[in-house]
């Protein structure tokens, strides 16, 4: 083991025909915690995940799991990985328990693991019902149980809350949040909803059109948040001219409200003092912080969205 990254990709690239689905992706997923792999639909998340699992082969680049190349070591490395890609793959004519038993037989693992996996996802009560009768949320949880069956060190989940109702989303989110702590598993999870990931992830990677736009700790992303100061003034033209001349970036919002780009909360005091000293009447002062959702949209749209 050369480093602490559970997942490391180097220049990972995959084309479908002339379309570049994943473009020189360099993922670094540290051990422990939850890594949120974010991007709009069609950004290349699923393609990237399928390459991590050896389901499709890259045109260029390399996947390393647990510090070792996936190429040639797949059987060995996959023993330590559990995966749920898109909708869970279940046999509807079998019961929940039988579905787990199919995978258990393939892996040749211990029988006790089935009960454990069922308990983890709270399906013990419904284990002997056919999957045909399961709700979408139950199916998703069973899919998670399949991924957890072999006690993996790394769990790869592709859009695990997709298509679930709010209760199902809540349940799934709670479950995923508990996993790193209770089972010591590192979770790599993809989503197209930042709000979804923001609540459980410790690290974030943002992918758009096959390219990684941001990668780092969640706090790092949060520090990128821009602040704006909304100032209400009587003398709009005079105030705008004065602030621009003193080096601030100013936009007119509506009527007599100005929006000023700021860096620190202290800027509010400074601007207020400047304006008042200048003899401008200030009647409104509010700090507005750009949400992460907007940062995400800005990064992935390429264009800023004004507030």
């Amino acid at each position, binding site marked *: 083991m050369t480093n602490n990254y559970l997942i490391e990709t180097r220049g990972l690239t995959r084309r479908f025909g002339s379309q570049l689905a994943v473009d020189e992706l360099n993922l670094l997923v540290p051990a422990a915690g939850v890594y949120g792999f974010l991007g709009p639909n069609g950004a290349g998340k699923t393609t990237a995940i*399928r390459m991590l*699992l*050896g*389901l*499709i*082969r890259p045109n260029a680049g390399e996947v390393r799991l647990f510090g070792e190349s996936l190429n040639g070591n*797949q*059987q*060995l*490395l*996959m*023993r330590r*990985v559990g*995966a749920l*890609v*898109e*909708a*869970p*793959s*279940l*046999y*509807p*004519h*079998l019961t929940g328990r*039988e579905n787990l*038993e*199919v*995978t258990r*037989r*393939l*892996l*040749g693992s211990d029988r006790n693991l089935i009960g454990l996996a069922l308990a983890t996802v709270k399906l013990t009560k419904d284990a002997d019902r056919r999957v045909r009768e399961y709700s979408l949320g139950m199916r998703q949880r069973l899919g998670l149980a*399949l991924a957890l069956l072999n006690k993996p060190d790394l769990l790869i989940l592709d859009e695990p809350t997709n298509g679930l109702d709010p209760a199902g989303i809540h349940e799934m989110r709670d479950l995923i949040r508990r996993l790193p702590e209770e089972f010591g598993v590192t979770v790599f999870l993809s989503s197209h909803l930042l709000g979804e990931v923001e609540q459980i992830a410790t690290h974030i990677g943002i992918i758009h059109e096959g390219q990684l736009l941001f990668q780092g700790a969640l706090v790092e992303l949060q520090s990128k948040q821009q602040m704006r100061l909304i100032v209400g003034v009587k003398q709009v033209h005079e105030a705008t001219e004065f602030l621009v001349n003193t080096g601030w970036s100013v936009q007119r919002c509506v009527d007599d409200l100005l929006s000023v780009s700021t860096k620190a909360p202290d800027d509010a005091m400074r601007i207020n003092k400047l304006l008042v000293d200048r003899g401008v009447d200030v009647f409104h002062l509010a700090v507005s912080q750009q949400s992460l959702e907007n940062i995400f949209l800005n990064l992935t749209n390429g264009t800023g969205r004004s507030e």
Partner: protein
Amino acid sequence: MSLVRALHAELLKLKRTLAFRVVFVLPLLIALLQFLVILRTRNYAPGFNLWQTHPTNSFQIWAVFMMPLLIALVTALLNGIEHSDKQWKHLFALPVPRPAVYFAKLVVAQGLILMSTLVLAVFTVIVGIAGTYLRLGLVNAGPVPYVWIAKQAAFVWLASWLIIAIHTWISMRWAGFPIALGAGIGGTFFALFAASASLGKYYPWLLPMNIFVNGRFEMALMLGIGGGIVAAVLGCFEFTRRDVI
């Protein structure tokens, strides 16, 4: 070892499916047909030995029509359960060699076809014995050729390996019953034309029938088994290298 595990898993997947019923019902249809034929035949020549014609007839109908249909159905069923929920992406992300999954499918399909052919053999014996009791003209039928019937069942099955391998690949490669069934019906249909062509004797869907044709027995057996193994290896090579989208 992985193959044994994969086989073990395959058997559980068949629970509550139609697989075992189909394996039983198709030979039953032939047995019923044969039974009616024996009952309705007007006259039997004196000394007519039912065992010289009846088992061969049974197996020939089986070889030409029912078994190819059964192969198409069984392989489509075995692989349909993997296509329905895109199970391949789950299976192939497990630490299980892909060829183990492929050959487990093939072996289970072969097993079910063998089982069905043996069921036919048993029905053939039962129908024959019933016939000798029910028709006065058949009292001279003589002893039941158990060993001969068992051998024919085994030969027909071995000659079908090539068809099984082709169908296993088709039904894994393409999702959906129509394609698998279409291939089966097409294969059987063209056998009618191939039968009259000079190279027709090598046609995969005619191999089981050729077991009963003079001078073609050994070719049918060799090509059935050998071709079946080669086709299985090629199919496995192609399928396990595919991207799982």
